[in-house]
């Protein structure tokens, strides 16, 4: 158990892995937000087909482990495509981003839906009574408030997504855990290395939590009273 050795030897490797961890997380969360918002609106639409598509998507993603999803995207999906186009290849980074964004999207869709449902009905009634269309009401009145209600759950999902990048080590994505495994294989410094890995995650998540606290404070508009009573 030589912490000094691990610190000097593994840190450069782990930092390299950290870059990928952060990169994949950020891209996947950004795409996941778009997917989530879209799926949420589809699930709440009056169109039965749109509702069904969103429902099936959320059902499949939530009902299967991300590990299996990653295997399907990285190993299974290319095999399917290669039937039509034999030269098709999918690198671990792209496969990782696809898996993680599809995964986050499903959970974010439900988080956004919960946020929208938490906005009192009177808010959209007030907007509609002024002559605003359904979509303008959603965009200008409901979604900004829904977003605020969603922040705690959103941050929760972002944290899960960042940590879930570690699952992507199994498809060869060279993020922190993958790098650590390689290093441990040579050095047998299990304890020190994985403690460092844990500290790295803790650091990223802590930064994320600080940012979310800041945003939440910024968005605090409600005064002391909610209504006249």
């Amino acid at each position, binding site marked *: 158990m030589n912490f000094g050795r691990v610190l000097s030897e593994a840190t450069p490797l782990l930092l390299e892995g950290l870059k990928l961890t952060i990169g994949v997380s950020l891209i996947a969360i950004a795409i996941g937000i778009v997917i989530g918002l879209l799926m949420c609106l589809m699930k709440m639409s009056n169109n039965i087909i749109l509702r069904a598509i969103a429902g099936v998507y959320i059902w499949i993603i939530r009902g299967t482990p991300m590990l299996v999803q990653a295997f399907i995207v990285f190993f299974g999906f290319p095999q399917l495509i290669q039937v039509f186009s034999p030269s098709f290849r999918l690198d671990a980074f792209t496969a990782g981003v696809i898996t993680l964004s599809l995964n986050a999207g499903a959970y974010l869709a439900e988080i956004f839906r919960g946020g929208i449902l938490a906005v*009192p009905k*009177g*808010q959209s*009634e*007030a*907007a*509609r*009574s*002024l*002559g*605003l*269309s359904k979509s*303008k009401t959603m965009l*200008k*009145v409901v979604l*900004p*408030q829904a977003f*605020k209600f969603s922040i705690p759950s959103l941050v929760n999902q972002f944290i899960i997504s960042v940590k879930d990048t570690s699952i992507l080590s199994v498809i060869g994505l060279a993020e922190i855990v993958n790098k650590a495994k390689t290093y441990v294989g040579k050095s047998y410094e299990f304890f020190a290395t994985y403690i460092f890995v844990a500290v790295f995650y803790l650091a990223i998540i802590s930064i994320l939590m600080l940012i979310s606290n800041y945003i939440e404070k910024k*968005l605090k*508009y*409600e*005064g*002391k*009273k*909610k*209504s*006249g*009573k």
Partner: protein
Amino acid sequence: MKGRRKVASDKKEKIVVTNLHKHFEDNEVLKGVDAVVTEGEVVCVIGPSGSGKSTFLRCLNKLENATSGDIIIDGYDITDKKVDINKVRENIGMVFQQFNLFPNMTVKKNIMLAPVELKKLKPAEADKKASQLLERVGLLEKATAYPGELSGGQQQRVAIARALAMNPDIMLFDEPTSALDPEMVGEVLDVMKELAAEGMTMVVVTHEMGFAREVADRVLFMADGGIIEQGTPEQIFGNPQNERTQDFLKKVL
């Protein structure tokens, strides 16, 4: 146009409701309501809870869809799916029991939202208009406050200003003072009285019998999903004919 009838006065009919029915599932809330409101008229709707007053009012701007019957607002039959309800709503202001101000916007932004979004006014004009409206309801100094920082009475006055921002010719009030502490009821009723004095066409669902008696041109008494009796405040409060009306007024007055 269906449901239109000649009235003796030269005033225009702003609202014509013919045989309005409204069901919620199996529950029949409105059982054939007929009503006409002419330009500049202040109509107060009173009656026991569950009588369908609010549902009737909410049908007038299609917050509730009529199950059957005709509702003609300014010549547009809003039960007709081809009529653009958003356009009609621009001409109907509504004030709610729970105010329903947008909590994430300042008072001024609340008022400016619709005129700017619906491109009725440029932002600078809307800003000026909002200030005028706030001055009118006596809250100009609250322009940059958030709704959560205001008392209930102040919030409701802002809500009235917001409803007026689109220059509606009709204002609907759904129990505007029912959620207020007693000491704040007066300030809201005063704003409404001014509006009435300026000739606004108003339909007011209310439990404030004093207001109805003083301000209404006509009082509708609703019970069991229908208009049981209507007349001038003197007739309804002074000499009610229907037994249900007499019974209700005995309880509330």
